[in-house]
């Protein structure tokens, strides 16, 4: 049963990635695109974690942690650039 639930969750997060890509292309302003990228990071972390459950390898969780950190720093840097015109003042 876990196999089917894992497949279902993976399909759900993959569909979410496609919808985020749609918003990334469609987004009227830059802030919408940044929000879509941030949601894509969350979905990709979930996909990496689910893949880690499927394969049983522990190294996937370290990849997820690194992705969480770099995604947060990237989003904040985008927002700082949009707000102030430079990332580090």
């Amino acid at each position, binding site marked *: 049963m876990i196999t089917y639930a894992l497949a279902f969750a993976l399909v759900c997060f993959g569909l979410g990635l496609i919808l985020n890509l749609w918003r990334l292309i469609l987004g009227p*302003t830059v802030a919408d695109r940044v929000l879509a990228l941030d949601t894509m990071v969350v979905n990709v972390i979930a996909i990496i974690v689910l893949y880690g459950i499927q394969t049983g390898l522990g190294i996937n969780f370290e990849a997820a942690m690194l992705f969480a950190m770099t995604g947060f720093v990237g989003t*904040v840097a985008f927002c700082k650039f949009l707000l102030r015109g430079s990332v580090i003042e």
Partner: protein
Amino acid sequence: MTFALDIILSVLLVVGGLFGLTGSYGLIRLKDRMQRLHAPTKASTVGLGTALLASMFHGLMIGTGFSWQEVLVMLFIFVTAPITANYLSKVHLHSRHFDGQIPRTGVSRDWSTFDDAPEGPEPQLPQRES
């Protein structure tokens, strides 16, 4: 025992997937910019949280053992998601698409994201005479 664990893990995974899909669908479906900020927070808290919980249970009961990485990822996501949302709403406000639609603050100062420094000294607690 194993069957109950199967049930718990499957329910967690299905709920996580549904919430993740709902968050991403809300990003498409909602009309306003500020409304669009609301949907992905569900995907990042409930969706990712239940996926990480399922991973923790799976590692603890079936796999090799408890691993701290899931706890760290959950902690990091839960701490950084409000900061990201705050920055994105600031970007929305500063992009000047909301002129005339923002409610007044009720005091002489503007909202603090538009106003650099408050006029006059900050209010202080009353000093005790000794």
